[in-house]
Structures are given as C-alpha cells and as structure tokens.
C-alpha cells in the first residue's frame, strides 16, 4: 500500500516535469515564431493583406485630320480565376470555354492549378464579361482594362500600327507617338481582408491614372479609303504580290493616305497569315515570328526598289536647273547609246523614237536622251541633286523602320553607272523618298519633310503639342519646278492611263525589272506611277507601286497609272477642286453619251470598226509592235461605260511574237 503511494507520488512528479518540459518547449517555439522569425512572417502577412491593384490608363484616341476616330480605347476586362474559390471546376471551365471560345480541357487544367490567382484572358469585351457575370460563378475575378480598338479593320494598317496586350504601341504611329498616346497607369494600394474588402482603419493609397493624349494624323480618312479601294482592286486584277499607294499634300508634306495591300488586321495583328495556315503548326516559333514580322513591314518606308523611269523626273529637273537642257532641245533616238563601249538600249529599241524634243523624250521615257542629259550634267552635279532631293537618307517620317535607300557614292560612279542612274537604274529608293522628291517639284522646288501627325490634343480638344511642317531645303528654283510640271502634264496625254479631263494630271510612269542578289530577274517587275494634279497648282501628289504584277501586263503606264487616276479623280472631287477644261475637253463634253462596246478579244482591225460605229476614237498602246491582226487584250474604259462621243478608247494589243 505504501509502496504504491510512493510510486504514485513519484509518477505524478514525473508527469509534472513532463508538462514543464513540453510547455517550456512551446514557449521556445513561440519565441522562435514571434521574436526570431517575426519579421519574416510579418512581411509575408503584409503581402497577403496588401493588394496593389493597377488602374489602367486610357490610351489616347488617334484621329484623322478631320477628327474621325481611327483608333480608340474601349473598356475591356482581364479575367482571373481564384482556384481555391471555385466550386465546380467542370462547370466553370465549360462556361469560360463557351463564352471566351477557348479550349475547355486547357481551361480545366488552368483553373485546377494550386495558385492564388490564374489569369485566363486579357482584353475581354464588356459583353462577354456581362455574359459570364450573369452565370454567377464563384472564383471569377474581373479587372478593368483597356482594349485598343480600330473601328475599321484592315484600314491604314501600316500608319496606325498596333499595341500589345499591355497597351504599349508596337508599330506604326502607335509606336512612334507612344509617349503621347500612353498615359501613366494608376495604382490602388490597400489592405484587405481575405474577401478582398478594404480593412477598416487601414491606410489606402490611390494614385490616379493619367490618360494618354490624343493624336491627330495628317491622314484623311476619306482619301485613305480611295487609296485602299483602288489598290485592293489593282492587287486582284494584276495578280500582284503587293500594291502600295501614297497620297501627299505637296505644300505641307502631309501624308494624306498611305495604303498597302495585302495588309493585316490591326485588331488582330497576330492572326496567322492565310497562306501559312496549313504549315503554321510545323513552323518554329522564330519562323512564325518572322512571318508575322514580314506582314507588319511597311513597304512604303521600309522597302527599297529600283525606281526606273519615274526617277527621270530627278535627272530632268537637275538638267533644267543646271541649264544643260531645255524643254525644246532636239534629240534623236536610234534605239541605243554606247557608253564606255557598253551598249545601253532604249526600252523601245525595236522601234526607235527617232527625232524628239526633250519634253517629248520625257513623255516617251526615252533612255538615250537621259543618258545624254546625265552626261551633260556630270556625275558630281547629278549626285548633288540626288542627295539634295533626299535620296540615300531617311526622310525622317515618323513611322518605324524607315530605310535610307542606296545611292552610289560619287567616287564609285563611272560613266556606265552615271548613265544608268540617269534613267533610274543602279539606285535604290523608298517610295516615301521618291514621292517626297516629286512633291518638291510640285511645291515650287521646296522639299518638305513628310508628316504623318499634325498635333497632340487633350480630351477637351485643346492642342497640347504641335508637329509643325518642316521645309528641308529648296532643291530647285520655282521656274524649273514650273517648267517640269508642264513637261509632266504634257507627258500625260489624253491617251494615257492617268488622264482625267479637266484636272491637268502631270506624271511619269516607271517599269523596272526587279533585282535579286545583284541580278535582274526576268519576268519580275516593279511598275509604278507618280504624278500630281492640277499641274498648274498641285493639290495632291499620288504614287502607286505595283510589286511583281502577275497578269498579262506589267508596264507602269498600263497598270499603275489607272490606279493613280482613280485615286486622283476621287480625291480631287472630294477636295472640291473644280475641273478646268481645255477648249478641246469642253467641246468633247458637249457631245452626247455613248456606251463603250466590248472589243476585247477582237483583232485590232475589227475593234477599230466597232469603235467607229459607236462614234469613238481609239488609241493603241504604242509600247509594243503590233499589226491590224493583233488581238486586243484590254481596253480603257471598259465595255458598258458611258462616255462622250469622240472620246478615245485605249486599246492594248497583244505584242507581236
């Protein structure tokens, strides 16, 4: 009995000490957590309590010159999921998959991840978010965001560019004017409870977002439309690789339109190009990126090409300015010219131009005459003008990726190189360089810097910053410019593809063979037209470049000039430029209208008869040798058009084999 009692007492003391030991351990553990590791846990807890919510700033609107919205920021949402709060992942995945058109299995995997929050999609439209909200699913979070939206898809793609998912400009004016368009996002830092509600008495910090400013472009939406429509047709009709058109106001250097087809959809710039759909999945990500990058490349400023005959305008004004040639100087074309023992052919060597004035030589685009003018100038002077017109240097247009072009240095220029450059070969230019140079001719010799944006305005419409027009230099005298305009007006005869009665169109066509790897590629051409109107007081300069036309015709005068004509005609009427008819044009307009008959496929002989019946004149495109048996490939205007009696129908005959 007493032994048990002793044992019990001893045991109770053991229990007491055991408790002491365990509780001392617990105090040690508490000291470890609350003193030694306190700051670490405190910091983590602080992170848990603090929510730093970015408040997106609204990106500025991009307007055309007449305040039409070309790029806007619409309210959008970012959708997140808190996996821990999801009641039924299957149901949620299905709902998200239905509304957002995403893969259900992937979504299910995403929302089953053991993370605090998982991003599902950015830039979700308000209506889709509304549809999801109505389903009342737990675990979904919607965060305000902005989405860049281009109301007209595939419109002025290369001017506007696009933004990335963080609303940062990636291309076009979105990139070059990023610092104005992008505001500063705000932040809302607050302490919250586990449900995201602000903790009472906690200090919340709110930083107001600063919205971006609005950009006013020099572009005119209507003229841009004309250009887009015209080159879209040209692309299809000529089975071309690409068509580019630029419209410039020569007095200011303002880009009124810059259109390229095919283009891309600014709203979805990462859409897989159609022709690559089949092999896209087999391409490496670098290949995919390169392919997309190619579609974003703006040929109007980034691609260089050999200008060919359109460059003769530069040789001409240099010659006129230096007084080495006059418009009525006489020349004689024998179909070729020999320079340093090398025979350079005129493009119409099969039927030499024979005797012609300088002005006629411009119209005829006669190569030997320009070789002669180039020789009279000498390489130093020609080079001086080439550089003065801005070739070989970027124009400083505010669009990304501008190329400088390649101009041979004056010391590397031998007699053959000089001869070639005189008629536009052996030099590479960008379309924007050439149209700027020709605009200088249209603008009394003053070279203007091309301008895409006029000003930056705030939401009240107040101008915050102006981008003034900039005259780079006077390249030629007003007189020389005026003379050249007359010569170029005369070059656009009533038979030419760009002729518009009453509008005094002046211009020059060009057809250059494409060079690849230092050699000319047979069958690959760049056909172009550059011109302005009205010749006596140019309002607009238009340039059309058709890259690799794949149809029956490839001459600039045949395929590029009509495209320019359509843009010129639409634009001049839109700008309310009153036609000024010559007496002959006025007389023609008095005559009754007749329908143009269908003569395509006929022999030339029969076509002439058919047109005579309709009381219409004809002109055969003279760039080819042809006979009365030649088959008519094409006609302008097309059959069925209403034109005045006595008007000329241009016929394109199949060249003699």
């Amino acid at each position, binding site marked *: 009995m007493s032994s048990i009692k002793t044992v019990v007492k001893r045991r109770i003391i*053991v229990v007491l000490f055991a*408790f002491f030991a365990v509780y001392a351990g617990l105090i040690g553990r508490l000291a470890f*957590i609350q*003193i030694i590791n306190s700051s670490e*846990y405190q910091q983590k*807890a602080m992170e848990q309590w603090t929510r730093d919510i970015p408040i997106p700033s609204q990106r500025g609107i991009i307007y055309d010159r007449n305040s039409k919205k070309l790029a806007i920021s619409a309210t959008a949402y970012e959708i997140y999921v808190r996996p*821990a709060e999801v009641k039924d992942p299957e149901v949620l995945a299905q709902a998200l998959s239905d509304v957002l058109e995403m893969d259900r299995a992937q979504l299910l995997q995403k929302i089953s991840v053991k993370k605090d929050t998982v991003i599902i999609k950015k830039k979700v439209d308000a209506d889709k978010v509304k549809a999801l909200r109505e389903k009342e699913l737990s675990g979904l979070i919607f965060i305000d965001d902005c989405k860049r939206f281009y109301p007209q898809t595939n419109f002025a793609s290369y001017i506007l560019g696009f933004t990335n998912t963080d609303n940062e400009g990636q291309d076009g004016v979105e990139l070059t004017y990023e610092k104005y368009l992008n505001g500063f996002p705000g932040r809302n830092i607050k302490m919250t409870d586990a449900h995201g509600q602000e903790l009472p008495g906690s200090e919340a910090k709110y930083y107001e977002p600063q919205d971006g400013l609005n950009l006013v472009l020099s572009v005119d939406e209507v003229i841009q439309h004309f250009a887009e429509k015209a080159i879209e047709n040209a692309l299809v009709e000529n089975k071309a690789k690409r068509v580019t058109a630029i419209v410039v106001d020569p007095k200011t250097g303002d880009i009124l339109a810059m259109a390229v087809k095919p283009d891309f959809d600014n709203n979805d710039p990462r859409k897989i190009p159609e022709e690559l759909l089949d092999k896209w999945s087999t391409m490496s990500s670098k290949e995919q990126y390169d392919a997309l990058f190619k579609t974003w490349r703006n040929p109007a400023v980034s691609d260089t090409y050999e200008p060919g005959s359109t460059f003769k305008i530069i040789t001409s004004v240099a010659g006129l300015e230096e007084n080495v040639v006059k418009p009525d100087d006489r020349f004689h074309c024998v179909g070729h010219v020999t320079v340093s023992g090398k025979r350079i052919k005129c493009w119409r060597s099969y039927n030499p131009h024979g005797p012609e004035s300088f002005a006629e030589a411009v119209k005829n685009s006669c190569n030997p005459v320009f070789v002669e003018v180039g020789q009279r100038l000498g390489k130093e002077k020609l080079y001086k003008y080439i550089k003065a017109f801005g070739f070989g240097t970027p124009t400083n247009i505010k669009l990304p990726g501008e190329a400088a072009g390649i101009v041979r240095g004056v010391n590397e220029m031998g007699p053959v190189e000089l001869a070639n450059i005189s008629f536009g070969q052996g030099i590479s230019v960008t379309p924007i360089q050439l149209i700027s140079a020709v605009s200088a001719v249209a603008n009394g010799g003053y070279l203007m810097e091309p301008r895409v944006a006029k000003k930056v305005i705030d939401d009240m419409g107040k101008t915050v910053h102006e981008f003034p027009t900039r005259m780079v230099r006077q390249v030629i005298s007003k007189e020389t410019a005026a003379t050249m305009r007359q010569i170029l007006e005369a070059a656009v005869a009533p038979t030419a593809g760009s002729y518009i009665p009453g509008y005094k169109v002046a211009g020059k066509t060009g057809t250059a063979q494409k060079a690849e790897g230092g050699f000319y590629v047979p069958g690959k051409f760049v056909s172009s037209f550059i011109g302005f109107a009205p010749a006596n007081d140019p309002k607009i300069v238009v340039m059309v470049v058709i890259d690799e036309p794949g149809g029956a015709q490839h001459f600039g005068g045949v395929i590029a000039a009509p495209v320019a004509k359509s843009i010129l005609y639409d634009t001049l009427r839109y700008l309310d430029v009153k036609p000024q008819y010559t007496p002959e044009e006025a007389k023609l307009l008095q005559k009754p209208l007749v329908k143009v008959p269908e003569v395509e496929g006929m022999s030339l002989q029969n076509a002439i008869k058919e047109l005579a019946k309709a009381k219409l004149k004809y002109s055969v495109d003279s760039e080819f040798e042809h006979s009365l048996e030649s088959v008519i490939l094409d006609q302008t205007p097309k059959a069925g058009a209403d034109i005045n009696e006595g008007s000329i129908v241009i016929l394109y005959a199949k060249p003699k084999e």
Partner: protein
Amino acid sequence: MPGKNKNNMDFTLLITVLILLAIGVAMVFSASSISSFMKYDDRYHYLKSQGIFAIIGIFAMLFLSRVDYRLFGKFAMPLVLVSLVLLVAIFIPGLGHGAKGAVRWLKIGPWTVQPSEFAKFALIIFMARSITNKKEKIRSFKDGVLPYIILMAIYFVLIILEPNLSMAGSIVMITFAILFAAGTKIMHLAIWAIPLVPGVGYIVLSKGYMLKRVTAFMDPWADPLNKGYQAIQSLYALGSGGIFGLGLGNSRQKFFYIPEPQNDFIFSIIGEELGFIGTATIVILFLLLIWRGLRIALLCPDNYGCLLATGITCMVGIQSMLNIAVATVSIPTTGISLPFISSGGSSLLFMMANMGILLNISKSIKASGG
C-alpha cells in the same frame, strides 16, 4: 471533514482559472466581432453567449467546489453508462447535430451538448474510483491495465466515428496519463504502442483528410491554399504579433484569413494582438494551473482524490498543450479547443465543473500541507 473546510481551498488555482476565463471572454469578443457581425449582424453574438456560459461556469465551479468529490465516485459506473448512451445517441438521426461532415453534438431542446466532453468527465471519475479499489492489483496487466484500455477503446471508437480525431486522441492520452500516475508497470503501458503503430498508420491512410493534415504539417507552404492554409495563417498571425502584439482588437488575420478565429485558432489571434508577452503569459497560466492541480493530487490524503485530481489536471494540460502545439505548427493541424478560452459553451461548462471538483479536492489538503 476535509471537504467542509473552506479555508483550505486552493486560492491560486481559483484565481488562475478566473484570469484564464476573463482572457477568454475578452479574446472571444475581439476575435469573433468581425465574423460575428458578418454572420449574425451582431458584433456581440459570441461575446454574449461566451459571457453567459462563463457566468454559469463560475457558478457551476463554485457549486461543485462545495460538493464532496467522493460523491461522484459512488456514481462512477452509472456516469460511464450514461456517457456511452449519449455517445451512441449521436448516431440516431434527429438527435445528432454538427457541421462540416462531423456530428459531435446532441441537440436537446434549445441546448446542444457535446457527449465526448461528458465522456472524458465520466472516464476520469470512473478510473480514479476503480483504480483506487484495485489497490495493489494495479501492478497486474489483466486487472490493472486491460479493463481501462478496453473502456478507453470503446470511447475511442465511438468518438472517432463522429469523427473527432483530436478528442479521441486526447481520451487516449488522458487514460494513459492516469494509468501511468496510478503506478502501473511501465511495460504494461509501453506494450500498447505496438498495436498502435499499424492502427495509426491505417487511420492516416484510410481517411484522406487526416493524411492531408499530416503532410501539410511537414511543409505548409507546399500547399498554401488547401492543406497548409490554416498553419500558414496561424504563423502569420503569431509572427505579426511580434513581442508586444498589435494591441487588443487590432488583429488583421481575424478578417477571414483565419476561419472561425474565436474557436480552435484563438491562440493565434491572441498572439497577433497581445504578442509573445500575451502567449507566454497564457502558457505560464496553464503551467501554473497544472502545478496547482498536480500539487493538489500529491497532497490529497486519499488515493481516489489524488487520481481524480491527476486526471482532471492532465485533461486540461493535455488539451491546452495540443491546442498551442497546433497553433504554433508544432504538430499537424487538428481541431481541439483551448480550455477556458476558445468559444463554446458545452466545453467551457465541463471545464469549469472539473475545476470545481479540483477545488473541492484541494479542501481535503491539511492546512499544514499547504
């Protein structure tokens, strides 16, 4: 008669219990006010019920401190039978009451009672009485150890079926503590560890959520949103409290980061608001209580009172130890309330009742012994 001598009541123990009770009521209010407002639109919902039970508890304690503890010994067997009936009654549909897939309460009219609390009470009285009667036979395996292990096993099975792993576990620990204190042979107790190993293994493996708790304990950050969530939140609360705490009422973790902060994790909220000073004070208060309780056991003139005091003290000591160990992520997360402090009327009433009995035993100590 020793039980009639009021002057000998353990005053230190009484004060300790009352301090713990006061801290409990204050902290239940502080911890619960936010979720109480959300749930009942009344900041004081838990304060009111906890306050009422605290007052009832104090009266129950004072009343029982005047009832001779030997009286309970006479009803040891009926108490055990009643407790078993109550534990079984839980499984009768309509009587059982619970939440989150566990049925742990009996609903009798407007009252809910936790039969497992009553079971602990019955078990301690029965063992104290029965072991005292066994005298020297306690050294035998068949008479001294086996019957109590069997009774414990019955309780264990009934409670684990609710399921209430932590309560079942503390029943085991209390049983072994009493058997150890009663002077059984160490080998007779140690031998039970052998079948226990595969048994625990089976439970851990068969019940998914139990296994998850074990793995969460090893690295709470491996799965911060699910299994490790409570452990992490508890550490955040304790850690942010630092040495001095954020001040009474200033917990941030009670804003739904810690679910039901007035219950099992109230110790974490105390740590956040009152700091290490507060948590260490509570640990020391419990140690004080254990020391007084075991001192009463040591000085109690009769074996029955000695074992009864040991059982009651061990029960409090083990439960608060488990609760604090969970809050400090020293053992896997398990739901066990902190005696005198966590909200919950049924548990508080039984605790206070037990204290009343302990105080009554303290009166049997001869003045010279104190």
